[in-house]
């Protein structure tokens, strides 16, 4: 309880700092946000009016206070270009990003954990000699490169998977949930999720293998063998449970970081998610939108960092249950 409160306070502090940093970042940049509106008919007065309508003509401290105030109210402002509330735009994109990230992570971790545990046992074998470099290579390859090759191969050439988007053109659904669970959506999800998973699996695999090897050398595993326990009991009940601790933490951290890291995959697969909102907002100089997307991604990251900490503490009795003497 105390840990949760403390960690929460810490997360709020970090969020505040990130929000302030974002404010500074977006205010102190060179260039003029109104430049995007240049046209033959754009005049000085219009420019001034535009700045006023976004409050950009006020002194910075005042802007900062207003900014923090609206953040607290969950108001991320209005998009320069779309003129819609930023939050609405982000919430539209959010489910797609969540679906992509979670699916990819689950695939990556399920595979990585099993393969990693297997490799821990296959120490020194030929399999290991091939599998580890292979895992490292998937992690070393640029995601977009891998994605484009997969796309060219599985979609353009063989026509198996759709080339872009999250749904068939013009498909109708009764609810967002119905959309996310439709066969159509899942079919569109396969390729991006697979690419992302391919990139992500290296970490759990290597981590699982390393911690497993470490745990297998631990005295309590030696003891378990001395006790004559079955191999299954040793591996599952003792080794895996201990080895999974850091992997579970990595999962939570990965959830946070791939949220922001999806930018590239979303662009390759024209996946209508947060990352693409961010990129197109940045490219189009839609600062309120870019700022909002950035803050939302950061908020998820901070939250997941917190969850990772709490998860670790919760899973590991050494942390969660204080020592008593």
């Amino acid at each position, binding site marked *: 309880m105390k840990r949760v409160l403390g960690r929460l306070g810490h997360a709020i502090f970090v969020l505040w700092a990130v929000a302030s940093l974002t404010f500074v970042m977006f205010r102190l940049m*060179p*260039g*003029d946000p109104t*430049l*995007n*509106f*240049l*046209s*033959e*008919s*754009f*005049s*000085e*007065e*219009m420019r001034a*009016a*535009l700045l*006023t*309508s976004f409050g950009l003509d006020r002194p910075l401290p005042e802007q900062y206070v207003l900014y923090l105030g609206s953040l607290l109210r969950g108001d991320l402002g*209005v*998009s320069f*270009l*779309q*003129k*819609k509330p930023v939050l609405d*735009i982000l919430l*539209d*994109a959010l489910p797609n990003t969540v679906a992509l990230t979670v699916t990819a992570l689950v695939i990556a971790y399920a595979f990585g954990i099993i393969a990693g545990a297997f490799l821990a046992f296959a120490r020194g074998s030929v399999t290991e000699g091939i599998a580890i470099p292979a895992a490292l290579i998937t992690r070393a390859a640029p995601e977009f490169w891998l994605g*484009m090759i997969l*796309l*060219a191969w599985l*979609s*353009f050439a063989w*026509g198996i998977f*759709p*080339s*872009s*988007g*999250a*749904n*068939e*053109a*013009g498909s109708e659904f009764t609810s967002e949930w119905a959309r996310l669970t439709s066969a159509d959506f899942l079919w569109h999800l396969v390729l991006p999720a697979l690419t992302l998973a391919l990139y992500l699996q290296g970490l759990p695999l290597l981590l699982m293998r390393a911690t497993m090897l470490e745990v297998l050398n631990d005295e309590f595993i030696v003891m378990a063998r001395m006790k004559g326990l079955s191999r299954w009991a040793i591996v599952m009940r003792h080794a895996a449970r201990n080895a999974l601790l850091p992997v579970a933490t990595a999962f939570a951290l990965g959830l946070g970081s791939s949220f922001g890291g999806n930018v590239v995959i979303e*662009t*390759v*697969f*024209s996946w*209508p*998610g947060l990352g*693409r*909102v961010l990129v*197109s907002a940045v*490219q*189009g*100089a839609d600062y309120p939108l870019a700022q909002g997307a950035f803050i939302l991604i950061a908020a998820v990251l901070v939250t997941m960092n917190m969850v990772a900490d709490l998860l670790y503490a919760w899973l590991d009795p050494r942390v969660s249950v204080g020592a008593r003497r």
Partner: protein
Amino acid sequence: MNRRSVLLAATALTALPRLPALAQGAPGDPIRPLVLLTRPQAAAPAAYQAAELIAQEWRKLGLQVELRPLPNQQMSQVVWYERQRWDFTMWQMVGRPERGDPDEMVYNLLHSANIATGYNFVGYSNPDYDRLAEAQRSEMDQARRAAIVREVQEVVNRDQPYAFLVHPVNLQAFNKQVFAEGSAVNQAGLGIRNFWNWISLQPTGRQRDIIVNSTEPVKATNPFYVSGAPDSWVTDLVWDRLMRVGPDGLPQPWAAERVTQVDPLTIDCVIRQGMTHHDGTPVTTEDVVFSYEVPGMGDESPMYKPFVQNIASVTATDARTVRFVLKRPDAAFRIAVLAKLNIVSKRIWAPVVQDYLNRPQNLESFVEERPVGSGPYRFVRSRVNEEVVLEANPNHWARPKADRWIMRIILNTEATLGALRRGEINVLADYFGDPDLVKTMARQLPNMIAVREEVDIGFQFVGMNLRRPPFNDAAFRRALSAAVNREMMAGAAWNGQAVPANSMVSPALAAWHDRGIEGRVPGGNLEGARRLLQEAGYRMVGNRLHYPSGVRETTTPYQ
């Protein structure tokens, strides 16, 4: 007439007013290193490649040319707000339906009234030009006006304030298994990405949706605000206008049954009978009047405000007639105003306008849950980076043949082609990729892919800053222009999807384009360029081009 002789003729025709008569003697100062601004390769690959090619050629003239790629934002900042600072820049004018009338290109771009803050950022000031630009505005006679516009192009050709590069050629394709090939309509300067095509495409099978791609997201669906090209494609379909630019590039009556020019300052529009908004209410003259009043109220619609500035009054003279009275004659009024402004429902918008007049924001921030227009398509939904869905308006007099019009946002050019091949889209309308690939696909799938090509209204050019020597010297500009090989550029930078340009009026606008100019497109003539410079007094010393005798370099290089 070959190019060289053209150049010589051009040289002979023009005087060299600002140069010493005697081009002999010791050379002047060496010309400072010049910086050519361009958008980065990633943002504008063709323009970047063109800039590289141009720079390569100009260096051969003894100039030190540095390429400076700048992101959109920063480039606009420099070119637009720091007009004294830069030397020359890659720039483009994009084709839009309303640019089917030459007024915008002629008046706004190069009239000296726009030098300080307007679009004449190159700082071109020529009283002769100004006179012609003004004259074409108020000339109501089509033939006479066309003659003036052609004259304008001659002046531009002589002065070369821009080094025109190319008019892009739009390459589009559609799936003829889905739509009857003959039902596709081409619009001058736009190709099949046009209003007429969207209502004409005739589905032949079970797929009755038009699915068209876009490389950028739709940002706003608002009759008083468009933020980018895709926005305008959507508003075009959802809201009707009094007139529309026809496939031939000329305005034709639309919501107005008849448009009559009562006198040079008065225009009457008789609206069609029985028109309804998507919510079922009738379209009235009151709606029309309201639609033309709103942009003039405060700064509620900065985008459309300039278009109503010339309207002295707009009134409903009877139940079906709306009368426009102008402040001064405007030849482009039909195309630039009547075919541009959207007709909205006063019932819906009047309270909104009232509300927004008291707010710091303007109407641009108003988001209709489900926009209501009166056009041939009704708005269904829009997801920013995903798609926009419209459905056919069965009550429209020009009811579309297709059931729905869906625009898919696909950023990835490769994926766009993949989507066309897989049938995820059936009209390829927004394509800047490699044309060979589309043509190859059409060859491989002759029963499926139909390709259309159309010269664009827009053009690509190098804007030279006439405020900064040596660009103030027309001879120098002509020489630079002469050194550029536009054919090569069209091939190597625009993948062959472009035609050389020497005018701001595209050949697509047959009525206005000065055909004579085509034969005088300078290009690829390094020798000619060198001679022009030589004659104007510029001298090569070593590898470096120097000003004519007595001219000092006083301009600081771009930083």
